[in-house]
């Protein structure tokens, strides 16, 4: 695996895309928090006509300079992407068009113009046309060491800017009014973050491409948000997810063809990176410790199991007849509450605790003015919910009752 960092052919794409994805994951957080993730999509498409036009211009001015072309591509993309941003802002502010409509409008208009010019370029500069097609879907494999330096510098710039602005951003995105009241210069900070976003998009075009770039701005933050509730860790985790996607994307684009036994089949790196990032995002949505869908489902299942086994425990304690689920019995045995279909000492204690909670809750409900005949159903549910702390408070509030409203004793209730 080390060869991805040492091999002269592999190292540029790997390190280059990793740095690019790192920066995108970091800057994507800001768009994500502003709930404007689609901006990345619009800006990357708006950069495309810049790429095409700059090639057109530079092919006329310096027909043989490849370095000049590479530089002019960056400048051209920066210009049209910024123009797209300005158009979006003006449409929202002055024309009062909703934000999603403005974004879609700029996305399709700019991209359309780009495609139009590209079709012209195809005829007059067929060689260059192939070059710019790279930017549509990206081509990491042909990157060279020069790209590492460029992307490294840009990633460093993004990190430095975010570190410098950290506190400002935290206050600004949480509470704009307060930020202004502190005398913060809101305008320049907004401008700088948008500039960073444009830079991240342009950097990403070469390796992931115009069409897929926005995924790298959205997926890492969306994944990171599932794991943390704090600003700093959120930024760190998102950029780490970006870095990881960049690496795994490169790795898989080489290894997957080998695994399936067709080593000569080459898989595009850009889409693979996007797939990895999206998988990380989906996995986080499903399995994150707090909000994950599967985690929540597992918690619900655990609670149901607990309720069912506690009900069985009570039935055993009261020596009720009836069918008893075999695997629930096994479960209670495994927990050491039951042995040979009889309760252990621990089992008796647990069952008495349940009955105590049940009857205590009934006393409480009657204390609160409920009718005696109506309290059983609620207690049947609450006996599984009440915590030791709540029990303590109930005991104190009700002055340590010894019988429930149905004149049955409350086990272990005395002081």
């Amino acid at each position, binding site marked *: 695996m080390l060869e991805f960092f040492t091999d002269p052919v592999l190292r540029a794409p790997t390190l280059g895309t990793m740095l690019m994805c790192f920066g995108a994951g970091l800057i994507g957080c800001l768009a994500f928090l502003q709930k404007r993730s689609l901006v990345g999509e619009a800006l990357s498409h708006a950069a495309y006509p810049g790429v095409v036009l700059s090639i057109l211009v530079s092919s006329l001015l310096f027909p043989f300079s490849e370095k000049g072309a590479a530089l002019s591509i960056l400048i051209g993309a920066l210009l049209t992407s910024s123009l797209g941003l300005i158009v979006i802002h003006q449409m929202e502010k002055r024309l009062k068009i909703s934000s999603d409509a403005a974004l879609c409008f700029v996305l399709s208009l700019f991209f359309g113009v780009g495609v139009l010019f590209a079709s012209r370029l195809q005829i007059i500069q067929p060689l260059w046309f192939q070059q710019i097609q790279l930017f549509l879907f990206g081509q990491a494999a042909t990157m060279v060491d020069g790209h590492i330096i460029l992307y490294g510098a840009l990633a460093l710039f993004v990190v430095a800017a975010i570190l410098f602005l950290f506190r400002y951003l935290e*206050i600004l995105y949480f509470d704009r*009014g307060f930020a*202004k*009241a502190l005398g913060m210069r809101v305008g320049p900070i907004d401008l700088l973050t948008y500039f960073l976003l444009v830079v991240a998009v342009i950097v990403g075009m070469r390796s992931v491409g115009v069409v897929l770039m926005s995924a790298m701005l959205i997926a890492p933050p969306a994944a990171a948000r599932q794991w*943390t509730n*704090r600003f700093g860790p959120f930024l760190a985790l998102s950029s780490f997810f970006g870095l990881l996607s960049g690496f795994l994307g490169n790795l898989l684009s080489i290894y997957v063809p080998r695994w399936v036994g067709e080593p000569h089949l080459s898989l595009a790196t850009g889409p693979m990176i996007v797939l990895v990032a999206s998988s990380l995002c989906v996995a986080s949505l499903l399995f994150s410790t707090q909000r994950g869908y599967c985690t929540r489902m597992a918690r619900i299942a655990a609670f149901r199991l607990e309720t069912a086994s506690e009900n069985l425990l009570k039935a055993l304690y009261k020596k009720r007849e009836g069918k008893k689920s075999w695997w629930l019995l096994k479960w209670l045995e495994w927990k050491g509450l039951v042995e040979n279909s009889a309760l252990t000492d621990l089992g008796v204690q647990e069952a008495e605790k349940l009955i105590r909670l049940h009857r205590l809750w009934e006393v409480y409900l009657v204390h609160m003015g409920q009718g005696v005949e109506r309290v059983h159903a609620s207690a049947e549910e609450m006996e599984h919910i009440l915590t030791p702390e709540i029990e303590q408070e109930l005991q104190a509030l009700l002055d340590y009752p010894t019988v429930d409203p149905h004149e049955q004793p409350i086990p272990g209730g005395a002081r």
Partner: protein
Amino acid sequence: MGEVNSPAIEIKNLTVHYGKTPVLWEINCSIPRGILLGILGPNGAGKSTLLKTLLGQLKPIGGETLFFGEKLREKKKKIAYVPQRSSVDWDFPINVENVVLMGRYQKLGMLKWPKKADRQAVHAVLDRVGMLPFARRQISQLSGGQQQRVFIARALLQEADIYLMDEPFAGVDIATEKALIALFAELKKEGKTLCIVHHDLMTVRSYFDWILLLNSCLIDFGPVEEVFHEENLKRAYGSSAYLFTETKKLAQARSTGDE
């Protein structure tokens, strides 16, 4: 020291426009130190605008404001602001402790990392508003009243002399409302000046000792017992005032090209 006797806030001929429409019109008043001032008026009367203009967020087209006899720039650190709760992104990944810590940044500087003493100061103010057990809680998990307490704690940490609050009682539970009123009385006793935008006319008498009645123009300003009476309320809230508000809306629509 000329500032010893100067009022907490002195507003002279303050006029604010949105476009060509006047929102605040020639406001003149001198708010003495150490009072609990309620800012009252119907919707759209310019109450929030007044606070934002005092804070320098909106530029007036005329008039000036002095704090303790000096310009805002000199006294910015002496003023704490509690915005409306609705102006905040409650989904933001941040916990209670770090929200309150924001009140410290003016003192701390934006680039320095908070030290132990700063954390302790945060815990002290959280304790004062009864929110210490929630210090590590994610902000979106709090109830409306709890969120408001966190905001007040942040303002307390700014160690200001003037507190400007935009509807702190909106959407909070009764327990919080009572706790806040007690806290405000304490602050007043410490010599702080509190200016609070308020909506509920029923509670005015028991909550505030001074009143500023606003409906674009300053209707009246002074101690509650002198200002809070039927005639003034009619001038601020009655049908004649309604006509004024409607005309203002129309003027705004015309000048922005909506009609």
